[in-house]
């Protein structure tokens, strides 16, 4: 990662700290300038990503010369004081005044702090504990009775402990030193200022309003930045000691942000996860999902041994070699019986995705491979090939840093607070700094958009292509070469939308990025888990590209025609055109037609399922191969930017094999070896193959009149709204998955799930008035009843529901993608 940190000489300021001269950029705070000369000034309230507050006073230093020849008569807080040319700073290292000041503050901090370090979660990794040792007095002069009555001389202030700020976050007020890091984070970073100071003096404490707990998608960060043990995690509380933990850097697997995390484990079990520090990506923040949702890999339903379908029809345990052999035999037969499709889901590391891509082509002889276990389209596949694959930092790709420098960021089909938390935080940072204006094409101003002070371009689902095109014509939106357009994967469900976005980018000069939801999505694009793309962005339809890959793989040739996409694979299985299926981590409920996907699995002649946990899919499979969770293998995700995010293995578990090892075993049995058996070997082969340097596939723009397939358009004069057979008005359904919902990778953490926003249907005021506080939505897949809430600026004729927060989700229980719904309730 190269960042140009060259700072012009003119912007440097020369200061002398503890006798050492150093030049630092203008406006650098003294506390950070001191770090440049290797002096760590103790601090609590200071945090480099939060605005200075100067509350704890721990970082006092002596300034004999402020740069103007005069000194400060009193010690100054180095966390609020910017450097000045010629300034002289004496820290605790050289100044007895500063040293005494710091020791005095530390003594004050400790008088009301309980000495319960032996039972405190923070003990062993506590800035207060550590700095009390490094910059405090050996013994406090605060003395009291052994058994003081509260309020009596010598008594520490006490509080009942602890209290819940939210289901995730507990507050032990006795330990709190009211540095305000948490309240500043909630206000400045997350935009969820639901915690605040209350009371005063020594009774001052962090509090919440009675009816408003600290519900934020980012609340866990306050636990991590708390410099004492005041904020603790309900999930981790009393579970382990820091010095018993082994910490391994990792990458979060819950979204496409590529957030750096730290995995702390003990005796083969992950105990907690923390945010890593990657200034290029997630800075020091992660979502609560990234932090708390890891129990899914440690549940009772984890698959731990291979299984094969026995003669009596039941699944029985099998050895690995037997499972490989049975799978190879079955797949070879299925290949003869029409072919085998491969559905990989979007959660794979890039190396595993590469293995599936190669396995499909080499062992199964097909391009019928698709990672998109969700509604998708041929247009999307073409878009990914033409506009997404191979872009990345330094290669035309939009980066997090680009979001900060962009004048405008246009969000289309993307709700980043729910779907890409780290991206949303970066947008908010940029907006707060006054740098970026966010424009969203969405059906209403979401809470996330509100916190971005964004501008809504009201857009009903299905209208995106027309509205995207209108952005070009309306100069007021200012979409030009200084803009960035971010499109979400949901746009695949709107014919013409991705093409329109590509057209907008091309005509305006704006930069375009595709932001998928899942961590493995982008890596799967890069590694060729698509019917139209081979690894490295090589188009299937390009003979030279096929030769390129075939040569590298040492095979005679590769299937020349573009394969079936996920929906087509499902349809072909149901129709009996395909003989078998290799399926990895796909939940039928996520797919465009859950019932069809289940039917396809049942109809398939032979199914090999590779999965982490027992599911309906594995129960229906002929061979089940357990796969390693991300903790048990090294690997790499590719972020939405196209940035490789490699990580090392955290847990050594010999029984836990990556997908690619199983695929290699099956391929070898089939006589078509993959040529690698480990993640490292696969990655080396991927690097050797490298990216395609030939002609990129073009994007054939489909006909524009796709909106004609929608009921009730708003083109031209408003026509009478469409009605169903019973005469009820058809409403367009807007939906996406919320950050915390019923997703299977959030299984096992009840505290996290308790912070989920309760499922509601958002309706217009008119709908609310007509149907009341509880409404029933009916679509082509069923009916659901939800509390209704008014969204002030919701587009007429639209209702919004969360996609996976009730029942089996919208696609199973309510409506197919793009299908209208009708509203009933409250008529009586």
């Amino acid at each position, binding site marked *: 990662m190269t960042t140009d940190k060259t700072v012009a000489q003119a912007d440097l300021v020369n200061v002398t700290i503890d006798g050492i001269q150093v030049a630092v950029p203008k406006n650098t705070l003294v506390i950070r300038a001191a770090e440049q000369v290797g002096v760590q000034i103790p601090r609590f309230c200071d945090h480099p990503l939060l605005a200075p507050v100067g*509350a704890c006073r721990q970082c006092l230093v002596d300034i004999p010369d402020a740069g103007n020849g005069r000194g400060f008569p009193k*010690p100054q807080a180095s966390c609020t004081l910017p450097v000045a040319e010629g300034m002289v700073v004496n820290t605790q290292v050289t100044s007895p005044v500063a040293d005494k000041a710091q020791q005095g503050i530390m003594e*004050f901090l400790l*008088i009301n702090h309980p000495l319960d370090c032996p039972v405190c979660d923070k003990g062993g990794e506590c800035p207060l504990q550590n700095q009390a040792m490094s910059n405090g007095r050996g013994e406090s002069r605060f003395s009291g009775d052994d058994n003081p009555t509260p309020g009596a001389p010598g008594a520490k202030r006490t509080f009942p402990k602890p209290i819940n700020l939210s289901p995730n976050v507990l507050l032990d007020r006795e330990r709190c030193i*009211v540095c305000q890091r948490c309240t500043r984070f909630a206000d400045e970073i997350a935009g969820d200022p639901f915690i605040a100071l209350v009371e005063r003096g020594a009774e001052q404490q962090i509090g919440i309003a009675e009816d408003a707990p600290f519900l934020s998608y980012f609340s866990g960060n306050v636990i991590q930045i708390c410099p004492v043990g005041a904020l603790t995690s309900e999930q981790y509380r009393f579970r382990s000691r820091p010095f018993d933990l082994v910490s391994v850097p990792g990458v979060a697997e819950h979204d496409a942000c590529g957030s750096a995390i730290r995995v702390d484990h003990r005796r083969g079990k992950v105990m907690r996860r923390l945010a890593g520090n990657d200034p290029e990506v997630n800075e020091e923040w992660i979502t609560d999902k990234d932090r708390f949702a890891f129990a899914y890999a440690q549940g009772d339903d984890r698959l731990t041994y291979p299984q094969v379908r026995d003669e009596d029809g039941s699944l029985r345990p099998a050895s690995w070699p037997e499972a490989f052999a049975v799978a190879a035999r079955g797949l070879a037969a299925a290949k003869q019986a029409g072919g085998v499709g491969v559905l990989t889901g979007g959660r794979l590391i890039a190396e595993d995705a590469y293995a599936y891509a190669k396995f499909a082509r080499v062992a199964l002889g097909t391009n019928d491979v698709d990672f998109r276990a969700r509604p998708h389209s041929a247009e999307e596949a073409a878009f990914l090939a033409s506009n997404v694959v191979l872009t990345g930092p330094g290669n035309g790709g939009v980066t997090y840093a680009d979001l900060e420098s962009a004048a405008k960021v246009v969000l289309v089909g993307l709700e980043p607070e729910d779907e890409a938390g780290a991206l949303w935080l970066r947008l908010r940072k940029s907006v707060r700094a006054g740098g970026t204006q966010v424009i969203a094409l969405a059906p209403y101003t979401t809470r996330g958009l509100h916190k971005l002070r964004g501008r809504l371009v009201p857009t009903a689902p299905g209208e995106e292509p027309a509205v995207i095109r209108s952005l070009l014509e309306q100069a007021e939106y200012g979409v030009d070469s200084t803009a960035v357009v971010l499109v979400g994967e949901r746009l695949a469900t709107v014919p013409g939308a991705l093409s329109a976005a590509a057209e907008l980018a091309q005509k305006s000069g704006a930069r375009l990025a595709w932001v998928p939801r899942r961590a493995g999505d982008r890596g799967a694009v890069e590694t060729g888990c698509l019917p139209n793309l081979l690894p490295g962005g090589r188009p299937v339809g390009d003979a030279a590209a096929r030769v390129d890959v075939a040569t590298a793989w040492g095979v005679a040739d590769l299937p020349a025609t573009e394969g079936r996409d996920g929906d087509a694979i499902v349809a072909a299985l149901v129709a009996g055109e395909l003989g078998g299926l290799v399926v990895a981590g796909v939940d039928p409920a996520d797919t465009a037609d859950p019932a069809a996907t289940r039917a396809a699995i049942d109809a398939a002649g032979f199914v090999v399922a590779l999965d982490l946990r027992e599911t309906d899919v594995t129960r229906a499979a002929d061979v089940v191969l357990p796969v390693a969770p991300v903790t048990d293998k090294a690997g790499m995700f590719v972020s939405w930017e196209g940035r490789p995010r490699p990580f090392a293995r955290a847990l050594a578990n010999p029984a836990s094999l990556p997908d690619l090892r199983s695929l290699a075993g099956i391929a070898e049995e089939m006589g078509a070896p993959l040529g690698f058996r480990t993640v490292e070997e696969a990655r080396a082969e991927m690097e050797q193959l490298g990216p395609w340097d030939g002609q990129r596939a073009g994007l054939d723009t489909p006909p524009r009149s796709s909106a004609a397939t929608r009921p009730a358009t708003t083109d031209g004069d408003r026509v009478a709204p469409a009605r169903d057979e019973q005469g009820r008005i058809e409403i367009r359904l807007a939906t996406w998955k919320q950050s915390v919902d019923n997703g299977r990778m959030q299984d096992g953490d009840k505290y996290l799930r308790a912070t989920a926003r309760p499922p509601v249907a958002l309706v217009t005021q008119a709908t609310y008035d007509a149907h009341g506080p509880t409404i029933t939505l009916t679509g082509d897949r069923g009916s659901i009843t939800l509390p209704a809430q008014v969204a002030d600026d919701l587009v007429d004729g639209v209702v919004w529901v969360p996609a996976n927060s009730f029942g089996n989700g919208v696609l199973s229980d309510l409506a197919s993608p793009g299908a209208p719904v009708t509203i009933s309730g409250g008529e009586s």
Partner: protein
Amino acid sequence: MTDTLTPVLTDMWDVERSWTRAAYESKGGYAALDKAFAMSPDDVIAAVKDSGLRGRGGAGFPTGMKWSFIPQDNPRPKYLVVNADESEPGTCKDIPLMMANPHVLVEGVIISSYAIRANKAFIYIRGEVLHVIRRVQAAVAEAYAAGHLGKDIHGSGFDLDVVVHAGAGAYICGEETALLEGLEGRRGQPRLRPPFPAVAGLYASPTVINNVESISSVPSIVANGADWFASMGTEKSKGYGIFSLSGHVKKPGQYEAPLGITLRELIDLAGGIREGHDLKFWTPGGSSTPLLTPEHLDVPLDFEAVGAAGSMLGTRALQIFDDTVCVVRAVLRWTEFYKHESCGKCTPCREGTWWLAQVLTRLENGEGSEGDLDVLLDQCDNILGRAFCALGDGATSPISSSIQYFRDEYLAHLTHGGCPFDPARSTAWAGVEVTA
């Protein structure tokens, strides 16, 4: 050095219904307004500068200079905020002034707002003094009715609206940036400076914050001229001020006199110390200013001389304690006040005042040891100049100064096993036969 009183602000306190507009105008009130409007705003600022008026809220910053810091090229609105959150133990000048003569404040607000080009002014009054809030509200209403406030005041083209705001009960809100936070509806805690209020104060706009007495002095300066004002007082502390005598004097009250008068003169004016007793110690400007003793009776009460004597002029709240008073008891009561009023923002004040009160309590009870005095002094050293705002500094003043002058009395508590004084003797009813 003058030895006579100079009633200006207090001049009409004895007038029948002195707080009414009619009474004020009968004494020439609101006449300075037209004189000011005839001047340019910059000339008004220059006049206040030339007068040498220094802030009467305690710190003594030159008022005219403060006004000139307002960046007039800043496109945001300018605000005048009057700090009427008088809460300092011993200080009792603004509240009687606003009770007896609220219109001089209103007139001062108008002229001062005109000078700094503010069209909106706020008077932030301590919430506990509801009677004062009502009186100032009534005065403002009267001024509106008379055309002294509102649009195009006196045909000058100058518009001004005045809001009387009631505080919510926090000593810290007398600190100007905490006051602004409170005025904005937030939690009253001091703000980080810079930016200073002159640049980004109320609602992030240029703001002047002045004490009631400072603003009330402005009409007299405009009416009588800067030279008239500067002719009073001492070289660097010009003009008059209200000296509030409380405690063990025969006639406690407000004495308006030129700066530089001595306590000896003021006690004479107040009829002397309580019969049969002698002065033991006193505060020159409220409890946050270090104690002084009889040896300081002839210190001129101006900013410089009191500073040279090791204290601060502060708000000229002269609390007089005679020889019946236990200094430890007095200091502990003050310290408990600071502990109660510490806002909690910064460590030394929040935790330090909590601890100081505990050590002092032990000492008053005759527990502890002589070493506790050194601990107290070291605690004070660790608070003074280390806290976020001046509240922490003020909390240390009575402790360190009392140990300086009365160390033996602290020790007497230890040898006596408790307080050697009879607290009843210092009360107003001491010596009086009290029956149930």
